[in-house]
């Protein structure tokens, strides 16, 4: 009986609950985003060493930090899908993979933009963070393409859940092995391990605000896309039809 509750009750419950949270989350996101962008990118004095490029770094660090959350999130969602068969977890996982791929891509883009100014090159294999982010992007694209290849949504949910779990373990192994690989090849690395050490405390506060803003952005977009997915998948359910009729 409780399986039924889980399967059918959850999406509705989530839809209603998230509907109440959304305005607050969006409000907080707007505030943090505005403060972060206006203060960090406009008013904060340019770093004495890095100049204006330190502003790219604020965005880059915030997005990169957030990108690391996707595989753990998908690991948890995948476990829930496989063990408790909650449909909601799969809906979240589906959009987490897509958002994660975008975040990884933006991390790589801002990272190489920053690198083009600081290191004089758009791509640097000796930076282990860039390399492992690249492979995280590949793994996420693998999950996305597996889902689009499987027609049956139930099979796709379970298959992607399993692949996300395997992928999460793999990302951790890749991260450490790439770091190791890197320390051995660091003959002429232009990368200092702590790239932003010469920055003042204001810079860190700005970055911190930006990180919170990006996390809020991530939550809001994940919730919005999950809500759409719920309406799409539960379109035959009574409450969705009532909802559509009401609006």
């Amino acid at each position, binding site marked *: 009986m409780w*399986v*039924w509750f889980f399967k059918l009750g959850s999406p509705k419950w989530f839809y209603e609950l998230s509907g109440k949270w959304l305005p607050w989350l969006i409000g907080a996101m707007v505030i943090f985003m505005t403060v972060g962008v206006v203060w960090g990118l406009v008013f904060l004095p340019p770093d004495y060493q890095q100049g204006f490029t330190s502003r790219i770094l604020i965005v880059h660090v915030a997005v990169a930090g957030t990108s690391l959350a996707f595989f753990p999130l998908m690991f948890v969602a995948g476990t829930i899908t496989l063990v408790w068969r909650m449909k909601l977890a799969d809906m979240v996982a589906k959009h987490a993979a897509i958002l994660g791929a975008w975040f990884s891509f933006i991390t790589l883009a801002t990272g190489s933009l920053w690198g083009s100014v600081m290191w004089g090159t758009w791509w640097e294999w000796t930076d282990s963070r860039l390399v492992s982010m690249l492979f995280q992007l590949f793994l996420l694209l693998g999950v996305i393409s597996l889902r689009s290849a499987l027609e*049956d*949504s*139930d099979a796709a949910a379970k298959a992607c859940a399993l692949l996300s779990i395997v992928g999460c373990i793999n990302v951790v192994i890749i991260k450490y092995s790439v770091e190791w690989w890197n320390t051995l090849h660091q003959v002429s690395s232009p990368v200092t391990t702590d790239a932003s050490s010469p920055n003042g405390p204001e810079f860190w506060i700005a970055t911190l605000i930006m990180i919170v803003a990006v996390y809020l952005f991530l939550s809001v977009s994940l919730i919005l896309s999950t809500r759409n997915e719920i309406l799409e998948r539960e379109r*035959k359910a009574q409450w969705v039809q009532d909802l559509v009729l009401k609006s």
Partner: protein
Amino acid sequence: MSSAAPTTSSNFDTDKIMLTARELFCARDDRVLFKNLNFDLPEGQVLQVQGSNGSGKTTLMRILCGLNDSYEGSIKWYGQEIEDQAASFFSSLLYIGHRVGVSKVLTPVENLRWSCSLKQAVSDEQIMAALKEVGLRGFEESPCYTLSAGQQQRVSLARLIISPASLWVLDEPFTTLDTKGVALLENILQRQAHEGGSVMVTTHHSLSIPELTVLSLG
């Protein structure tokens, strides 16, 4: 949607009931295949599952075998949950699906040696005798890609003869068989029922087996 078989369980001792299915519900991509499906399968009975194309016969068979788990409801094996006694259930179960499980590269003997040894020890004499009974004498050592579809089906039928499994789940086993083959399979099914085993079978043939009950889907 579906009508349960007219099995009055009072006729049977409850511990003689092999499979009990209650309130089975299965939907595939928003389409309900069956709901509220109830039936009992006692020892010594052949249960024929009938229904039009797309009524979920194959899905039901796969659900009973544990190959498909997207359903609601309960299926019990001698009154207990299948998960609690998986090893005993799977060693008593023999399933032949649309894809009969015969590798085209191997010979009938090699195929049977492997597929039988997944469940129980089997000797070459048993395999030879079974192949002879299903009319494949002389084909024992030819690769299965040289055999016709009906002959490959007969290879899988040989497993029925060898197997001591008490529950057979057969999905459309008659499709490629000729008249002689149909008679042979009916004979084998009847023997299983006489020995106290049970069979779930989907087919559009009308079977001439006294122990037959019919379950209609859709």
